[in-house]
């Protein structure tokens, strides 16, 4: 067994920090790579070594394989952790790592290749007796053929990127008239995101729940699953809130789905940590896709099983056996929730990158916040707008919900819009509290529209605070700069406002 000593973290943001934390705990060295706009990031500060790999555009930095491999060589790293997104599901990168004598912390390139093509994955699932969502069985490059195929499957229909994931290149189409434009747009998005514009079609389920199973495998043919995560609270086909266990499963269904997930993991010769996603509609489950990487929402599985999945990835990659990495049979203990805090408009979901002025994150009992941000951090527009992942654990679902509401109440971020108000509204919603929801939850209930408006006195306090803020800046001596934690390059509004008034 070859111990990994130094790991290059080929990612950014919160997940780079998360991986570096695992490496620290294991006593292994961490090498960070960064684009020019991430020089000030937490990952760079926490890593043992850090090297710039290019300008902000992903293609020139976090997707720049030669630059990343060169840093690995120069720093003497013996393994690469790709995180999620970017190169995490890129088989050619995994191959290039292998050829450069580096261990890729993830499955074999052959597995990534097989499961990365969503159509191959569907075929494999079917061959192993796992039900799939009805749809097309080959990529559609020709618009006319796509149209014919859409007619055959029937509307509403989902267009998906064959090489895709994470909601990119994905479109729901309700009628034939809208199909061609949506198909072009999806294909263009897929080409930008994955370098491959081919799409396929799936029947659209009206009220599906998204339930996925965490699987782990060693290099010696042993497999385990660590139960499910329910990720049905979504916007733009991307997850916003996740929880485990799912309210939709009973022990019998959980066992059947876990067993199906393991069948797919075995059939793909999986190694390391991966996730099998299912659509769940009216008691039936259908294989959706397999994610051959660490999931964004892995913390809730960690909270309910007590196992550190990033450490597990590293140890399994060293060739350790499953019994060593998971000595006690995994069980689900209590309930965990995760809210993804995005820099975005809570209603339109449009990204709102920019500089965070002040950030105060919640803590206290059973609260976990995975982030890279602090006061003064710039959320760059080039990448995903994820700021942090707030997760809580409770003995019961009700306790976890109450705890999340408390934690969200403590979370304050000023300077840019976030979806914190949306999270508060969802957690307070009766349908969510009752556990009766599906992926249409946000669109159906518009939970933000039912939030109580601040009462007269509180509103008056806000008015007074704002007027006094302007008054103080117009008429008082400026406060010491140390009390305004904004970056040096960017004057706070006080300075700007004062300047404006002098003009």
């Amino acid at each position, binding site marked *: 067994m070859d111990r990994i000593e130094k790991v290059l973290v080929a990612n950014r943001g919160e997940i780079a920090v998360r991986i570096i934390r695992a490496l620290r705990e294991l006593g292994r060295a961490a090498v960070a790579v960064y684009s020019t706009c991430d020089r000030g990031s937490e990952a760079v500060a926490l890593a043992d070594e850090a090297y710039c790999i290019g300008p902000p555009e992903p293609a020139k930095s976090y997707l720049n394989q030669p630059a990343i491999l060169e840093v690995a060589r120069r720093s003497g790293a013996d393994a690469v952790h790709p995180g999620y997104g970017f190169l995490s599901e890129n088989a050619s990168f995994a191959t290039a790592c292998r050829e450069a004598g580096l261990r890729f912390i993830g499955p074999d390139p052959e597995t990534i290749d097989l499961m990365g093509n969503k159509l191959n994955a569907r075929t494999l699932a079917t061959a192993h007796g796992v039900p799939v969502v009805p749809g097309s069985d080959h990529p559609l490059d020709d618009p006319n053929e796509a149209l014919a195929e859409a007619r055959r499957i029937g509307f509403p229909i989902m267009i998906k990127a064959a090489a895709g994931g994470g909601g*990119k290149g994905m479109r729901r189409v309700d009628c034939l008239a809208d199909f061609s434009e949506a198909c072009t*747009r999806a294909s*263009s*998005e897929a080409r*930008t*995101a994955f370098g491959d514009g081919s799409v396929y079609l799936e029947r659209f389920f009206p009220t599906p729940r998204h339930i996925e199973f965490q699987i782990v495998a060693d290099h010696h043919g042993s497999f385990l699953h660590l139960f499910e995560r329910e990720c049905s609270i979504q916007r*733009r086909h991307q997850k916003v809130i996740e929880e485990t266990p799912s309210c939709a499963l009973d022990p019998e269904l959980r066992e059947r789905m876990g067993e199906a997930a393991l069948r797919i993991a075995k059939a793909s010769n999986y190694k390391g940590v991966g996730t099998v996603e299912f659509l769940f509609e009216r008691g039936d489950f259908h294989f959706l896709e397999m994610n051959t990487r660490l999931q964004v929402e892995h913390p809730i599985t960690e909270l309910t099983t007590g196992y550190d999945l990033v450490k597990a990835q590293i140890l399994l990659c060293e060739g350790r056996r499953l019994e060593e990495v998971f000595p006690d049979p995994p069980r689900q203990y209590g309930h965990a929730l995760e809210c993804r805090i995005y820099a975005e408009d*809570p209603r339109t979901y*449009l*990204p*709102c*990158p*920019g500089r965070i*002025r*002040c950030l105060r994150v919640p803590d206290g009992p059973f609260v976990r916040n995975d982030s890279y941000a602090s*006061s003064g951090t710039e959320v760059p*527009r*080039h*990448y*995903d*707008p994820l700021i942090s992942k707030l997760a809580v654990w409770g003995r019961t679902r009700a306790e976890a919900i109450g705890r999340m509401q408390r934690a*969200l*109440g403590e*979370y*304050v971020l*000023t*300077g840019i*819009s976030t979806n*914190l*108000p949306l999270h*508060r509204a969802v957690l307070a919603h009766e349908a969510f509290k009752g556990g009766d929801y599906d992926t249409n939850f946000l669109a159906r209930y518009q939970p933000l529209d039912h*939030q109580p408006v*601040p009462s007269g*006195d*509180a*509103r*008056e*306090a*806000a*008015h*007074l*605070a*704002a*007027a*006094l*803020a*302007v*008054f*103080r800046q*117009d*008429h*008082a001596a400026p*406060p010491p700069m140390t*009390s*305004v*934690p904004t970056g040096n390059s960017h004057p706070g*509004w006080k300075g700007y*406002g004062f300047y*404006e*008034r002098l003009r």
Partner: protein
Amino acid sequence: MIRYVLEDGATEVGLDLEACGPDQYRVLIHGPDGTTRSREVSLTVAGDRYSLLLDGVSYLVDLWFRDDTVTCLLDGAPLEFVCQSEIRRQRRSLKAADKDETDVVTRMPGRVIELLVHPGERVERDQGLVVLEAMKMENKIVAPRPGVVAEVCVSPGADVDAGACLLRLAPSES
């Protein structure tokens, strides 16, 4: 006392302010119904956090400005309104009076992927004008009102910042 004006939705509130001690302020509140009340406020500020005491009741408000628009977080719920001194507001309204074109601005920074309209083209409300890519998502910027495209201010491939003007709409001659 200095007069400040708050425009919160349809409500307009006037506030006369003066300092009357360390962290102490006296306020005259002129409500939309024509009434006037006097209040004493104790205020401390740490970064964006404003802690107010109003007759012993404690309020925490986190707030920041973008131009004259203030965003307040009250128990986490964002509240947006316009707050400016009376003098400044008067100066502003004079400037805005003779402008009849509408700037179509982007609220988010990103890259222009595609222009869907040409100068001189007539557009309907909600018609797509520009496709903008930000954070790997393509978004259509739509017309806020019907009109005629007076000027296109960006070209495909251009990077734009939040608040940048994408194009200008003139009123349609109907």
